[in-house]
């Protein structure tokens, strides 16, 4: 597990390139910085992408076509293409009147989806005749800001988590760029904008949402400290777990049955989903805290504690996790959602940590990743 501190401000969002040698991050301002991995655990900044007029809220890097899409609070999205040694932006008209919140390339990279505060999702694709990115809107029945998006492997279904407390799966089928999709566990008729699934039962804004590797399951975390998984079928069953921690902000599948989620508690956690029983169980805390030397307390300190905090025990004043502030995003570095061997977290402490699943599994005896 390696930790690198990029900046003092929060990292708003990040994205990796195909071979994981470069990372694009937004240092909590209007720009996107691309860092390249040098030897010895060092990172050097090689590009600065300055085009947005508002904070960049989402970055996604398409691995095959090597294009970056960014979206920001200035209600715009830009597609960046590397020409020579410079990244050149192309404006995409999203036709939204509120900030864009999240953006994701589809698996085939011929379209991308942008979630915004205008209570709609813009599906953008490239129109060859006009040499221009155009977009179509999915509006109904979203009633509040769309906070998170994830594409199904079939390139058509899109899961969206929003501030109206619901997780939904829509069809984003664009007939200009693709063939009709074959039936999936979520339904067979998929015209554009069709609502395939809507969740119920959890309160709280849906911060993050993720399809499993096969696309048959979708997991989401919401602000009422719950994790939920739904398996697509004729009668979709939603299983949820109310956790005892602070709300989670990011979730991803690392195998078909295991989820890693992280949030305001500053460490990632493992959750195990059992489809047969329809339950989610807490698998363990995925953080190896440094063993700090135990200092004995002087009598003076004891009295001070008793006076200030009404307790005479040694209080942990420092956070023992690797990240010193909330983790806002998790991305898969090696492997894919059905079998991940490394994942990366970035947070509000400006740091990025790369976690190795095998090392975690071996160092935590009770950890079982099924």
């Amino acid at each position, binding site marked *: 597990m390696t930790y690198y501190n990029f900046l003092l401000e929060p990292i708003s969002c990040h994205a990796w390139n195909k071979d994981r040698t470069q990372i694009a991050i937004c240092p909590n301002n209007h720009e996107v910085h691309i860092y390249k991995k040098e030897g010895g655990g060092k990172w050097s900044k090689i590009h600065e992408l300055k085009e947005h007029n508002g904070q960049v809220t989402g970055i996604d890097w398409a691995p095959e076509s090597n294009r970056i899409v960014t979206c920001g609070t200035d209600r715009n999205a830009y597609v960046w293409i590397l020409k020579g040694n410079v990244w050149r932006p192309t404006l995409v008209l999203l036709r939204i009147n509120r900030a864009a919140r999240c953006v994701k390339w589809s698996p085939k990279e011929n379209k991308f989806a942008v979630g915004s505060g205008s*209570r709609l999702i813009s599906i953008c694709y490239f129109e060859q005749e006009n040499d221009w990115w155009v977009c179509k809107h999915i509006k109904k029945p979203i009633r509040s800001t769309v906070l998170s998006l994830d594409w199904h492997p079939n390139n058509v279904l899109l899961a969206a988590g929003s501030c*109206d407390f619901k997780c939904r799966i829509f069809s984003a089928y664009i007939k200009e760029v693709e063939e009709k999709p074959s039936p999936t566990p979520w339904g067979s008729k998929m015209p554009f904008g069709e609502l395939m699934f809507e969740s119920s039962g959890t*309160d*709280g804004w849906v911060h993050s949402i993720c399809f499993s590797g096969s696309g048959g399951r979708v997991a989401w975390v919401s602000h009422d*400290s719950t994790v939920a998984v739904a398996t697509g079928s004729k009668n979709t069953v939603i299983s949820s777990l109310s956790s*005892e*921690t*602070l709300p989670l902000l990011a979730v991803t599948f690392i195998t078909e049955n295991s989820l890693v989620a992280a949030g305001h508690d500053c460490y990632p956690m493992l959750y195990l989903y059992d489809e047969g029983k329809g339950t989610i169980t807490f698998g363990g805390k995925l953080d190896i805290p440094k063993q700090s030397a135990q200092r004995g307390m002087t009598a003076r300190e004891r009295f001070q504690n008793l006076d200030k905090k009404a307790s005479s025990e040694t209080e942990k004043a420092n956070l023992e996790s690797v990240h010193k502030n909330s983790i806002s995003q998790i991305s898969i570095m090696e492997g894919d959602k059905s079998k991940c061997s490394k994942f990366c977290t970035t947070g509000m402490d400006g740091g990025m940590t790369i976690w190795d699943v095998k090392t975690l599994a071996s160092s935590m005896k009770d950890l079982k990743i099924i």
Partner: protein
Amino acid sequence: MSKNVSSDRFRKVDVDEYDENKFVDEEEGGENQQGPDEGEVDSLIRQLCTGNVMGALQAVLKNPPMNTKNQALKDRAEGLVLKVLSSFKSGDIEKAVQSLDKNGVDLLMKYIYKGFEQPTENSSTVLLQWHEKALSAGGVGSIVRVLTARRTV
């Protein structure tokens, strides 16, 4: 300094009421919700001398009036819960909390915070003792669920 003599009544207008995109919760029929049955709880409280506080707790946490808009019903339920919580001995609180399941602990937290909103003579002390035990059972997650709940007791 100049004084603003023109009318500022417009500042007191609630603009959210006129917003056509305003979010309204889905109506879920809560007319049949009765809240904990008063008769049942009363009889259990009478048995408190024989020490059946646990039974009283289970009974009063059944049927929370969550879906209804009837404020009187909610107040009555809160009053009943407070009565039962106050009749516990400090030492028994921990055992009682352990006997509840996850949803029970969340529900108890909701009632505790409701009770904090309208403090009476002794209620805060009692509620704080219950809060400490419920917190160790439910963690901060249960408090987050009190804060984010759309339908409250």
